[in-house]
C-alpha cells in the first residue's frame, strides 16, 4: 500500500482587489489519509499563505468547506487523498469554488447570498400547533418522524445546489426545498398552505427534472431526489 502521494492541485483563484481570476498550480507530497483541508493548510504553511479557503468543523458536520473537485461538489474535509486518487484515477486535481454565489476570494464564496434562498422558504415553524397540554412535548411516533427525518439531516453545504443543473437561476434549489418539505411533513406546523405555495411556486419543485444529481453528491447521503419526487406527487402532507 502506498503511504504517500505526489499531488498536483490546480486551484482557481480570485483576487478581489485586482478583480483577477487565474489558476494556480501547487505541487505537494501528502500522506494517504490526509484530508483536502489538510492539503490547503499545508499549502498555507509551506508554500503560499495567501490562498483563501473555508472550513469550520472539519469533520463533515457544518458544510463550510464545499468546493468543486474535478467538477464534483464535495466537502474538502471529508475527502482523503487516497480515496480521491482512487475515485478520480489521477493525482492531479482541479479545485474551484462552488458556483452558487459570488466569490469573495479564491475558494471562499459569499455564503450569505447562497443562504438567501433558504431564508426565503422560512426554515422554522411559522405557526406552531399547540401541544396537547401546556408544558408538554408533542407526541410524534417514530414512524411518522422516520418519514421526514432524513430531510432534517441537511447541513446546507450547497453541494446539491451546485450539482443541480436546474437550480442556478429561478429554482430555489434542492436544499431550500428540503427545508420547506420538512415543515410540511412536521405535524407541529399548522401553516401548511403558505408552505405548499412556496413549494409549488414558479421557483419551486416543478423546476426539478429528476436528474438525481442532488442525491448523488449529497455528503450526508440524503436521498434528496426522493423528497423532490414525493413533493411532485403531492405525497408530503402530515397527519
Amino acid at each position, binding site marked *: 500500500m502506498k*503511504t504517500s502521494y505526489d499531488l498536483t492541485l490546480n486551484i482557481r483563484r480570485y483576487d*478581489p*482587489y485586482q478583480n483577477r481570476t487565474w489558476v494556480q498550480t501547487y505541487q505537494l507530497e501528502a*500522506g*494517504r*489519509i490526509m*484530508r483536502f483541508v489538510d492539503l490547503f*493548510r499545508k499549502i*498555507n*504553511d509551506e508554500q503560499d*499563505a*495567501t*490562498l*483563501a*479557503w*473555508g*472550513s*469550520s*468543523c*472539519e*469533520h*463533515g*458536520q*457544518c*458544510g*463550510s468547506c464545499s468546493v468543486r473537485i474535478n467538477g464534483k461538489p464535495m466537502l474538502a474535509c*471529508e475527502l*482523503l487523498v487516497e480515496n480521491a486518487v482512487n475515485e478520480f484515477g489521477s493525482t492531479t486535481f482541479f479545485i474551484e469554488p462552488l458556483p452558487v454565489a459570488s466569490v*469573495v*476570494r*479564491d475558494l*471562499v464564496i*459569499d*455564503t*450569505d447570498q447562497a*443562504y438567501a434562498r433558504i*431564508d426565503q422558504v422560512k*426554515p*422554522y*415553524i411559522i405557526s*406552531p400547533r399547540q*401541544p396537547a397540554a401546556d*408544558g*408538554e*412535548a*408533542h*407526541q*410524534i*411516533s*417514530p414512524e*411518522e*418522524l422516520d418519514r421526514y*427525518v432524513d430531510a*432534517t*439531516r441537511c*447541513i*446546507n453545504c450547497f453541494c446539491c445546489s451546485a450539482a443541480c443543473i436546474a437550480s442556478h437561476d429561478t429554482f430555489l434549489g434542492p436544499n431550500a426545498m428540503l427545508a420547506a418539505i420538512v415543515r410540511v411533513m*412536521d405535524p*407541529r*406546523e399548522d401553516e401548511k398552505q403558505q408552505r405548499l405555495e412556496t413549494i409549488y411556486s414558479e421557483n419551486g419543485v416543478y423546476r426539478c427534472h429528476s436528474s438525481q444529481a442532488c442525491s448523488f453528491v449529497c455528503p450526508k447521503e440524503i436521498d434528496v431526489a426522493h423528497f423532490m419526487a414525493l413533493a411532485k406527487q403531492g405525497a408530503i402532507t402530515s397527519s
Partner: protein
Amino acid sequence: MTAALHIAATLRCDVLIIGAGGAALRCAAEVLEQMPGASVYALTKVSHPQKSHTSTAQGGLAAVDPRDPLDSTLFHMFDTWKGSDCTADQNVVKLICESAWEQILWLENRGMHFSRDREGRLSKRTFGGHTRNFGEASVYRAVFEADRTGKGIMDTSWGETLKNGIRFFNQCIAVELLIKDRRCGGCIAFKQKDGQFVKILAKATVIATGGSGQVFRVTTNCRQNTGDGLALALQAGLPIMDPEAVQFHPTGIVGPGILASETLRSVGGILRNRDLEPFMVNYAPKMKELAPRDLVARAIESEIREGRGIVNPDHNIPHVWIDLRHLSDDVHEKQIPEVSSFFKRYVNLDTKKDLCPVRPSNHYHMGGIPTNAFGEVQDGDQQIIGGLYAVGECAAASFHGFNRLGTNSILELITMGKLVAERLIPYIKEEYGKHQDIAGDRFAARFSTYMEATGSESVGLIRNAMRTMMTEKVSVFRTEKTMNEAIEDLAESYERAHRAPLACRDLAMNQELLNRWELDNLLMVAMAISQAALHRKESRGAHFRDDYPERKDEFNYHTLASMVSFPTVEIGRREIDMSLFAAGGEHHEKFDYIERKY
C-alpha cells in the same frame, strides 16, 4: 496601507451578541420573543450561524423531566457538583438544573426533531457521570436528536431568531471590547469579507464566542475556536476564571482528533488495550466505561504511558481501541450512525467488524470569563461590568467547576442563554442602558504591528509549534517542570510572532492576517492556562498534576487569572458558592466537599 485601519462606520443596536452559536442564539431568541422589534445584532466568525461549533455536538442534552419517577433534579445537581470535583458554584447548578426541562420544551415546541420512543415521547439515554440516588446507578437523563443534538439546537434557535428579525453579521469578528469605568458600550468589529473595521454601539453586549480548543494540537474543536472572547477580556483588563480547567475527551479518533462521542461508551462500547484487555475496570470498578471523562482520559493515557497502547502507523500516534463489534446492527444503524461513519470516513474502518483507534483529545474549556449566576461579567474585584454579559463555553458562572459532565454543556447554553436575556432586558430598558460611545483605542495599533512586521518568522509555523507544545506539556498530565517549559516557550513564541511578516497586506479575506491576530489570542489564553496550572499545586477534576496527585482543601477556590501585560499573569481567587450545602435541609451533606470516586 495602515490608513485603512480606521473605523469605517458606527452602528447602533439594542443588544450586540458576539457569537452566533447555541448560547448566543438562545439568548437572542429570548430577547426577540420578549421584546419584539428590539434590534439584536449577532456577529460570527464563520460564514453562517449554522456553521458554528454547537452544530457538531453529538450526544445529548441532560435534563430531568419533573414527572420522571426514577430521576430528580436533586440527583442532577449532585452529579454536576460531584463531577465538577466540588468546584462548581451551587447557586448556578441549582438554577440550571431546575430550569432544564422547560428549555427542552421550548426547543421541542419550536420544532427541534428530538428522537422519540415507541409512544412518541422524547427518548432518553444514559451518559457518563449521570446517576440516580446519588451515584447508585446510571440514569436515563439525556434527550437527544440521534447524534445531531447540537445541530438540532442550532437549527431551531437560528430559525427562531430569523423569524423574529435578528440581524446577522457573518465573518465579522469582534477585535476589541469597548469598556470604560466598569461599563461596556459595544465592540470594534472587523468585517472580514470587505476588510473594514466598524464600531458597534450597544446597550448590552453579550460575549458568546465559544471554546479555545485550538490552543492544543489534538482537539475536537473547530478551526475558529481560538479563545477570542477570553483574549478580548484579558486585553480589556478582565480576568479569566479557572483557565487551567481544560477537559480532554477520552475518545478522539486517532489522526484528525475528531470526537468519537461518549455515546459509543453509553451504548456499550468497551475500551481495550494492546492485549485486548478491558482495562476500565482497573480504574473505575463500578462505572467502568461510564466514568467521567477525566478519569477515562487518564486511564487511557496511563495505559499508553505504561506501554499498553498501540502505535498507529499512519500518524505515529499511540492509542487504545474502542470495541463496538458486539453491538447489534440496530444500535450501529439507529443510535450511532454518524459517529460510526467517522471511523469509516477518516480511518477507513467498519465499527461492526473492526476495533477502532481512539486517544484523548482536547475537548472543552470549563474556565472562562467570570460571571455571576445571571451571566453578568465580573472584573478582578468581582464588581460587575455594566452592560456586559458572557454565556456559553467562553463563560464561567461556574456550572462545570473543574470537570464538565457530558451533555451538561449544551444544557448550559440554552438555560443560561435565556437567563442572560431575562437579565439584560430590564437593563436596556433603564435610563442607564443608553448608548455610550467609548473610543476603541487598541485595535489599530495591534493590526498595524501585524501589517508592518518584518523578519523571517512564519505565523503558521509558530502556531503549529505552539499547539504541539501545549498538547505535549499542558494536557492530561501536568508537572511543574513541563509547565515552566511551556511558559518560557510561549513567551518566546510571542516575541517571534512580531518578526513574522504577512505575505499579503490586503484586508479583505486575508486569512493570514486573521491567523496572526488569532495567534496572539491563542498565546494569551495558553499563557493564562499554563500559569494558572502552575499555581494550582494540586489535582482537581480535569487538572491533573503528576507532582501533586491529590485534591487539597487549601485550593478550594476558583482561580482568577489577569494578564497585566504579556507574559505576566496575576492570580486572584473567587469563593466557591456552597449555597446548597449551606441551606441545610435533607441531603445537604451531599453538597459538601465530598470525595469524587466512581
